[in-house]
């Protein structure tokens, strides 16, 4: 099977404390630590496991700037065979549809049996996979936590509310968005990254893809972020302060009063 996995470089929520910049309209991006979107590692692992059984290739693809190359290399170190970087200043400010439009242009140049995305990324929208499928007129399933490959069709489990699993049969080619927990993504060490350090990753621009500049980027976007803000969430928690002993003494009183002890 030829499998394409769409991945994204995102700010790492575990490693950063997010602050607004002085103008208050964007994140202070100076010291942000970036990594591969958590969901994408599960998607790449799943693709590798399928190809190990059925043969074929795993290609990882991303829309991003030059720095996004590092996430492609990381996923290639996991075992993806090829990487493709779609990069152009004209892509900046794209909404979900813009990103899907860019990916579609490249996908139509190849022949893929299965296209995977993460279930969602840093913006929490979970939109690109479903949009891409609709544009390509392929069937789609989101939040997939099980894949069984058959002949011309596959069986997929979707994780729904309460952790129940909705089983579906779906024809190939199709697009699936992958939920965390479907597998245990393999560890990537420095040695693995070094092995793929010199593999060439083609970079394609809007004109390479034959994309009209106004179909993507800011001009093509119907949904755009205006600013970041701090919401008024009411009072918030009463923060306990002092030495650890003092904090624990106060906490124990509260817990006794509330039936916790």
């Amino acid at each position: 099977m030829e499998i394409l996995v769409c991945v994204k470089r995102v700010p790492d929520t575990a490693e950063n404390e997010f602050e607004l910049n002085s103008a208050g309209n964007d994140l202070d991006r100076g010291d942000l630590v970036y990594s591969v979107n958590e969901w994408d590692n599960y998607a790449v692992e799943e693709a590798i496991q399928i190809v190990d059984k059925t043969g074929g290739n795993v290609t990882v693809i991303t829309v991003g700037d030059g720095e996004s190359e590092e996430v492609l290399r990381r996923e290639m170190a996991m075992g993806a065979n090829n990487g493709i970087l779609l990069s152009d200043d004209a892509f900046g400010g794209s909404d979900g549809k813009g990103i899907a439009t860019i990916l579609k242009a490249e996908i139509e140049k190849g022949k893929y049996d299965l296209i995977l995305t993460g279930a969602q990324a840093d913006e929490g929208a979970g939109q690109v996979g479903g949009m891409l499928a609709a544009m390509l007129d392929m069937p789609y399933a989101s939040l997939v936590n099980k894949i069984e490959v058959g002949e011309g069709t596959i069986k997929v489990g979707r994780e729904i509310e309460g952790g129940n699993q909705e089983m579906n049969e779906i024809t190939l080619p199709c697009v699936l968005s992958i939920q965390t927990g479907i597998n245990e993504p393999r560890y990537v060490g420095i040695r693995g990254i070094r092995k793929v350090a010199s593999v060439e990753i083609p970079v394609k621009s809007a004109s390479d893809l034959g994309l009209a500049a106004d179909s993507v980027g800011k001009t093509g976007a119907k949904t755009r972020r205006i600013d970041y803000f701090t919401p008024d969430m009411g009072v918030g928690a009463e923060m306990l302060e002092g030495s650890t002993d003092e904090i624990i003494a106060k906490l124990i009183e509260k817990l006794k009063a509330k039936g916790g002890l």
Partner: protein
Amino acid sequence: MTQIFAYIPFSNGVAEDVAMEFPAAAAKIDKTASLTAVLTGSGPDLDKVANEMTGLYAEVIKIDNTALVYPNAEVVRKALLNIIPAGAIVLAAHNTFGMDLAPGLSIKMNAAYAADIVNFDGVEGTTLKASRQELGGAVSTHVAVDVSSGAVITIRPGSFTAVEGKTASGSVVDKSGNAGDLSAKRKFLEIVQAEVGDVDITKADVLVSIGRGIEEQENIEIAEELAKAMKTVVSCSRPIVDAKWLEKGRQVGTSGKTVKPKVYMAMGISGSFQHLGGLKGNPFIVAVNKNPKAPIFQVADIGIVANIIEFMPELTSAINDL
């Protein structure tokens, strides 16, 4: 005039709570908009919920077809495309069905898409201003949505005030005949129920709940000891189950268990809406997190900025000394 259509999710003849929240969301988009509920399904369950919705919506459209008994997003999308006029705004819930349906629907309608909206500031001209969160709830953003050719919008369940009582006296319009071809390349097979674990966290009055802040599998013991001192059990957030450190039955959240404890100890949990979605009954929440900006502090009653690996053993021994 803005036309808004709300897709009503229901199961076993009961509408989900979000059905009561769409009217408030629609009013925040545009008070003068027309609001129509749309339901797909088949048989008595569909009729029951459709009739109930006439108490909340001036117009209720039902599409009855045996292909719609289980809400397969591909089939529902086809049906909706034959019913919803061009340029309309479609509201759906940001749940596992909405995530399956909405992005593709927006493409087929050639409409804008906005996901997981928690508030609206209204429409000006053809621009709708809305609020949402990014980065697991760590930051909030305003977005501008160009609704000139319609929009598909998912709203976060629980974010808009639910209407109470009977607020409309609408009628049901049967559009089953308009549904068109409902064949699909994806076929629903069955629901496999989540495994029942060895520990039932749904009955506990107190929960010691751990998140990714526990850092290592070996550290779970520290939480077990605190739970023992508090005479209860350990629950967790999703990453702990994904890592296979605890079984699925211990997971709190929309894709895990719904719990109703009196006291909830959130240890190294950031406070994503999917996690908090499993926490009902307004418990007393104690959050311990090393990040003073963690979103959990906005919803907790008591907050402590600390490293849980050091804090939990101290708390355990203080409780044991009581």
